[in-house]
């Protein structure tokens, strides 16, 4: 096949990718844009078989089929609440693929010094992205603690491994040694783990976004090694847009990137001992008590969190809201930008459950109202209403904008247990005398509230 035709199709695919990213940044055409991106990918993969002399076609097609058999059911079956960890996994395998491509090309032809530099970059960054993503997956899936993990001598070890990686990378360029490249891969895998372990709680999604950008850069480096323009364009696009997206997310949470990545290395940053819920008393209420508070309020603001989504309680909460509205109570939902597990995650979850859009209020809109709100009903959210973010500089979530629930006349918390939220820190608001707690699964608690409100006169 003519090389010109192949490159034209690559250009077409690159355009599709740019349009896809552009379209994803506005809600209107986002879904179409995603399909355009997928179409570009189909073109690119199809034409790749005409790019030079491609052997082993049977094997390659079988491997693609295997990937499809694994990927599609996984992406379809995943619950919307589990999307962040799924993104982490997909990113991890992408990073592994980029590292493997660079490694294989290195074994086949060692190329010139420039190529070897790109190879070591691709291998190192791909490995970091792979192992780092696996750790973020384990954290989000709660297969390991979501809190920052501080190893003894963690900081010196991380610096040591970084220096080792750098040394190995520099040594590979003149020597083209296979043994050194393999050692570099192992060191890269280790570095990825050390890099993500100290990142805790609500900062994990930001780490995923950064690793996503890393994978993009590893892909671009592989593209340089192969002399393939499409990989360079697409990888760089993701690298650059991912870096910017990471910064925007960090900013939306009032965090600096250095603080997220290196904050936990400093002992002072580990606030809250997260031990068993102390001896201080909290005030709990029966569903009937709370129904009276809600039913006779003028204004109620519902603060949905991850706990609500996990319990699939969106429909019950709407039933409760409708009941209250029927009694003349003014109801709104206050949505924190990082409610759920990722920026924008709660909007996805509530949209899934058909909650009326007009009642959803962004943080900036709802915060001024909270001071004149009778009851703030917090359902399975914790970190996003924790006043420590405002007034405890030593807290790991200090600086994150929060919903000012503590300014409402009274606060009702529906919680499963006294276990701290995702960030693993205690919430002073739970011990406030104006706070009433109702323990239990969000769906059960809400159902009993619905029953109790119905029984009010």
């Amino acid at each position, binding site marked *: 096949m003519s090389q010109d035709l192949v490159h034209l199709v690559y250009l077409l695919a690159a355009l599709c990718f740019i349009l*896809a990213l552009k379209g*994803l*940044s*506005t*809600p*209107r055409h986002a879904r179409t*844009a*995603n399909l355009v991106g*997928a179409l570009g*990918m189909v073109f*690119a*993969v199809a034409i*790749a078989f005409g790019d030079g002399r*491609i052997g*082993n076609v049977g*094997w*390659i097609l079988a*491997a*693609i089929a295997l*990937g*499809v058999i694994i*990927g*599609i059911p996984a*992406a*379809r079956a*995943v619950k919307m609440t589990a999307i962040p960890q799924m*993104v982490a*996994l*997909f990113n991890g*395998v*992408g990073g*592994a*693929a*980029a590292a*493997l*491509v660079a490694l*294989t090309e290195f*074994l086949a032809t060692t190329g010139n010094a*420039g190529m070897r530099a790109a190879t070591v970059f691709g291998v190192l960054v791909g490995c970091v992205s792979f192992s780092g993503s696996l750790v973020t997956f384990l954290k989000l899936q709660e297969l390991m603690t979501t809190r920052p993990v501080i190893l003894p001598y963690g900081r010196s070890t991380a610096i040591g491994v970084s220096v080792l990686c750098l040394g190995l990378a520099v040594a590979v360029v003149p020597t083209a040694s296979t043994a050194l490249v393999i050692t570099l891969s192992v060191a890269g895998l280790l570095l990825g783990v050390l890099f993500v372990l100290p990142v805790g709680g609500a900062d994990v999604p930001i780490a995923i976004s950064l690793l*996503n950008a890393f*994978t*993009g850069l590893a892909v*671009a480096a*592989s*593209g340089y090694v192969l*002399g*393939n323009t499409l*990989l360079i*364009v*697409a990888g*760089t*696009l993701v*690298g*650059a*847009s*991912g870096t910017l997206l990471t910064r925007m997310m960090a900013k*939306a949470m009032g965090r600096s990137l250095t603080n997220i990545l290196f904050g936990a290395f400093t002992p002072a940053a580990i606030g809250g001992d997260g031990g068993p819920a102390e001896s201080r008393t909290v005030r709990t209420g029966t569903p009937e008590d709370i129904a009276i508070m809600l039913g006779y309020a003028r204004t109620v603001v519902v603060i949905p969190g991850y706990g609500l989504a996990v319990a699939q309680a969106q429909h019950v909460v709407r039933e409760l809201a409708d009941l209250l509205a029927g009694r003349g109570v003014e109801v709104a939902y206050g949505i924190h*930008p990082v409610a759920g597990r990722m*920026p924008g995650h709660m*909007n996805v979850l509530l949209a899934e459950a058909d909650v009326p859009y007009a009642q959803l209020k962004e943080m900036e809109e709802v915060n001024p109202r909270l001071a004149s709100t009778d009851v703030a009903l917090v359902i399975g959210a914790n970190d996003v209403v924790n006043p420590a973010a405002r007034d405890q500089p030593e807290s790991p979530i200090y600086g994150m904008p929060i919903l000012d629930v503590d300014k409402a006349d009274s606060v009702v918390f529906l919680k499963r247990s006294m276990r701290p939220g995702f960030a693993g820190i205690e919430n002073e608001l739970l011990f406030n005398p104006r706070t009433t707690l109702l323990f239990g699964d969000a769906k059960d608690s809400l159902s009993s509230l619905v029953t109790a409100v119905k029984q009010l006169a």
Partner: protein
Amino acid sequence: MTGEISLLTIFVLSVFVGFEVVSKVAAILHTPLMSGANAIHGVILVGAILVAGKAESTVELVLALLAVVFATVNVVGGFVATDRMLSMFSGKERRR
């Protein structure tokens, strides 16, 4: 040398395009955008096919095929997951 310079040119221009396309994204779309960008770096599949296609030793072939499987999972999983997320947003658009 000119070949390498043109690759560098492509790289630098792509950086600017990358910054430009997401510079004004709304916070509610951060998650789908991250997932969409994630699917796009699955284009490494093209690279995996190219190295698998010219692999000569068994080691090279095995490594390259592993890359093909991983990259395919990245591509199809990324696009499907993004589409599912966005379908919920577009449902909302219709009802409004």
